């Protein structure tokens, strides 16, 4: 099944599978892609090796797929899921309720980490996961414009170079991460060198680690706060 068919079917059925979860989906939120399961599995593996109660942020949460997967698979975690748009926040809340995760997933709305101001999470977060929009505005208006047939622009548009949100999250995450806490991104094909440079320029992270998909493409880049 092509990606376009999968998206259309998900909206028609109002449901999508993500890892082992059955999630609600609705127009206004991105249909979770299979490649994002790599980010989920990587975060879950990282968290499973950590002791104690764990604090996780899912920034740009979309339909809440990453937040719900992490909360489901890591029982000692509390996840703060945040997005800018009404549509994403509404679908995330419904998925949290549907999976009975309300006690361990807090849904917030705002412009990236501004949504967490005053939450008491400063220097306390173990892991930030982020699947940001990462397609450049120009590509979205030309060779990838079919993506906008069904799904919201906010889910894809990463600014003129496709890196605007990565760049902001790299800059805004350190005040919330504890020392040794990790920031994990999904990236577009071929973006790993650029995202490595973003981390390096920020100077508050260790060297990056890459995770590859089954085809050998790097789709997850992560680093720890020093």
């Amino acid at each position, binding site marked *: 099944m092509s990606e376009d068919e999968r998206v259309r079917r998900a909206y028609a059925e109002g449901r999508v599978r993500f890892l082992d979860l059955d999630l609600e989906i609705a127009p206004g939120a991105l249909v979770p892609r299979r490649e994002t399961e790599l980010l989920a599995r990587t975060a879950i593996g990282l968290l499973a090796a950590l002791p104690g109660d764990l604090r996780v942020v899912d920034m740009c949460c979309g339909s809440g797929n990453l937040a719900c997967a992490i909360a489901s698979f890591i029982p000692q975690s509390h996840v703060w899921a945040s997005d800018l748009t009404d549509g994403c926040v509404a679908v995330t809340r419904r998925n949290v309720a549907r999976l009975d995760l309300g006690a361990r997933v807090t849904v917030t709305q705002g412009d990236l980490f501004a949504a967490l101001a005053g939450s008491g999470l400063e220097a306390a977060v173990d892991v930030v996961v982020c699947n940001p929009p990462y397609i450049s505005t120009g590509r979205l208006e030309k060779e990838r414009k079919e993506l906008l047939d069904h799904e919201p622009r906010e889910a894809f548009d990463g600014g003129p*170079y496709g*890196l605007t949100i990565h760049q902001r999250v790299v800059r805004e995450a350190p005040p919330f991460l504890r020392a040794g806490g990790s920031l994990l991104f999904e990236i577009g094909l071929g*973006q790993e060198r650029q995202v490595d440079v973003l981390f390096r320029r920020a100077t508050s992270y260790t060297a990056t680690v890459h995770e590859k998909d089954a085809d050998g493409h790097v789709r997850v880049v992560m680093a720890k706060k020093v």
Partner: protein
Amino acid sequence: MEIKEQVRQFIVSNFYVADPVAVGDETSLLDQGIIDSTGVLEVISFLESTFGIVVADEEMLPDNLDTIGRIAAFVGKKRA
């Protein structure tokens, strides 16, 4: 060598440019597919190391970086 020529040499040497002669001072590097999300930070690193400037995150914009002419003007302004 003037800034424009240094930038031009860097770009044609480090990115796929089908026809270097066709890249004028006002040719859009984004529209031509020469520089996008897989290359812009290399350009910034080059500018910083070659011209001794620091490019802030919020300066990573097509207004400053999308043509050789704009890059040269941006570098000139930063060095002033």
